[in-house]
């Protein structure tokens, strides 16, 4: 166990350090006011994911002092980029059906960074039930974001889970790369990223315990490090967390000396900006996976 804690810690600390070192590469190019938010994959979504990873490092509280400081700095950076929430507020006010302002705000709210006008807008959106026409796993994302922000709704997480691929308990080979991501996110949102492992129904837990080792084996063999990291997060979200040293050592072996963790087994380019663009998501995943695994192994809240 000690070895596994060290491995998970090292992976998370190095990935978080890499995100912190390169954070300016994820900034809006000039002024957020002129940024094209119709292209959320550009700078907007990465900021959201950066805030997510940082908020979970802060929530779990198991990282070292340097990592906690880096996480606090990163969520401060993303909040500053989002003009202390004004950008999210204006976007949500104009586009009541969009979910990304809510979801991005949730990570900041979790970290104590609040925006009153945005919250009033989000409450009104919730009353209007505007964010409804979504894929089943995305409905869970919205429900969890409302839960984090503290906006009361009558969301039935169990019923919503049963609408997802995972909740249907399909035959385990009826899974492709895209749907594997849907499956991982279903677990993330139902458990609020490992904080509520008991909210997974027993049959879903049994299903995940049966098949996670196979999915991990197959996608690790294919060098899909990003998906492997997401599956390791799922493993850490189970009521009895699966933390397998061999799987973690394999994941760690893919990490570069500077903390970059490649998304897959294709060559990593030398260009600094391109490296950040290509692999920032996997660093976020690695930070979360290592943080949650460490927390569960040490008996943390997750």
């Amino acid at each position, binding site marked *: 166990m000690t070895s596994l804690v060290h491995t998970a810690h090292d992976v998370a600390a190095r990935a978080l350090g890499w995100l912190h070192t390169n954070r300016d590469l994820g900034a809006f190019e000039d002024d957020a006011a002129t940024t094209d938010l119709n292209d959320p994959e550009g700078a907007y979504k990465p900021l959201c994911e950066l805030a997510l990873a940082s908020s979970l490092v802060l929530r779990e509280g198991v990282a070292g002092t340097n990592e906690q400081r880096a996480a606090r700095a990163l969520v401060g950076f993303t909040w500053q980029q989002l003009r202390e929430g004004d950008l999210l507020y204006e976007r949500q006010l104009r586009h009541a059906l969009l979910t990304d302002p809510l979801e991005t705000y949730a990570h900041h709210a979790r970290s104590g960074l609040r925006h009153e006008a945005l919250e009033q807008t989000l409450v009104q959106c919730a009353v209007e039930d505007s964010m409804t026409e979504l894929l089943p796993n995305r409905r869970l994302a919205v429900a969890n974001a409302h839960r984090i922000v503290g906006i009361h709704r009558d969301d039935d997480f169990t019923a919503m889970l049963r609408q997802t691929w995972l909740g249907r308990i399909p*035959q*385990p*080979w009826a*899974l492709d790369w895209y749907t594997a991501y849907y499956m991982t996110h279903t677990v993330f949102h139902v458990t609020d990223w490992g904080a509520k492992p008991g909210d997974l129904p027993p049959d879903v837990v*049994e*299903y995940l315990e*049966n*098949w996670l*080792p*196979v*999915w991990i*084996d*197959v996608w690790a*063999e294919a060098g899909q490090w990003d998906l492997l990291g997401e599956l390791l997060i799922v493993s850490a979200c189970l009521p009895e967390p699966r933390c397998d040293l061999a799987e973690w050592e394999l994941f760690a072996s893919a990490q570069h000396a500077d903390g970059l963790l490649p998304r897959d087994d294709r060559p990593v380019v030398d260009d600094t900006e391109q490296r950040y663009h290509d692999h920032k998501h996997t660093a976020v995943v690695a930070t979360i996976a290592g943080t949650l695994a460490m927390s569960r192994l040490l008996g943390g809240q997750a």
Partner: protein
Amino acid sequence: MDASSCARDAAALADRVLGALRGSGGVGLADFLASRADPTAGLGAVRLVGADIFLPHVVLNRPLTAQDAEVVAASFEVFPQATEPVAPEQRVMAWHDWSTARLLATLTGDAAVAAPDDPAAVLGSVEKWARWSVAVAQLSSLAHPGATGPVVDAVAAQPQALCRGVLRAALRRDFVIASRLTRWVALTHAMGVRLPVNPVVLVDHVALRVGSEPRQLLDLAVARHLVGAP
């Protein structure tokens, strides 16, 4: 005799077994052997297909002719069984041959044949389920209707590892391994073991993807029979 002609003959023999299972008559081992350009390769094919040559007798209760029994006995004379298997492939062949010899003895009324050794020696540790399941797949001819024995007991005791193996094979698009393991899944289901996959759905999933190689089709035919699917 060369390996490729032996493999070709094994495919042809498996096709005959498949036809017999579908009602075309007997396998006709003596006739099969007589039709081969190289009788030694033909006997090698009999040994490769192994206990599956008896499937029409096991499944449809067809009697085994003395001529056909002599062909199997001749195959053991030309290719003697490994008496002290050491390497993994030797252990696989030892169990494969044991299954053949055991069914031959059952059908001819001869004395029972002693099992090779502890099944753990051929299957390995179930903790290493991926490697374990590949060894199980190599022994698919032991998974026939009514099968018993140490390997059958060992496999049936590990439904999770077995189903993990078949899932791994299906996701890796390795439908040779998948069809062999599907046969074991079907046998385990027929033995009343609770499984974490639906065996009927599994058979149909693999059947759509397995291609036309007779030995895999034979695996699936056995699996279909075991799960009671048409």
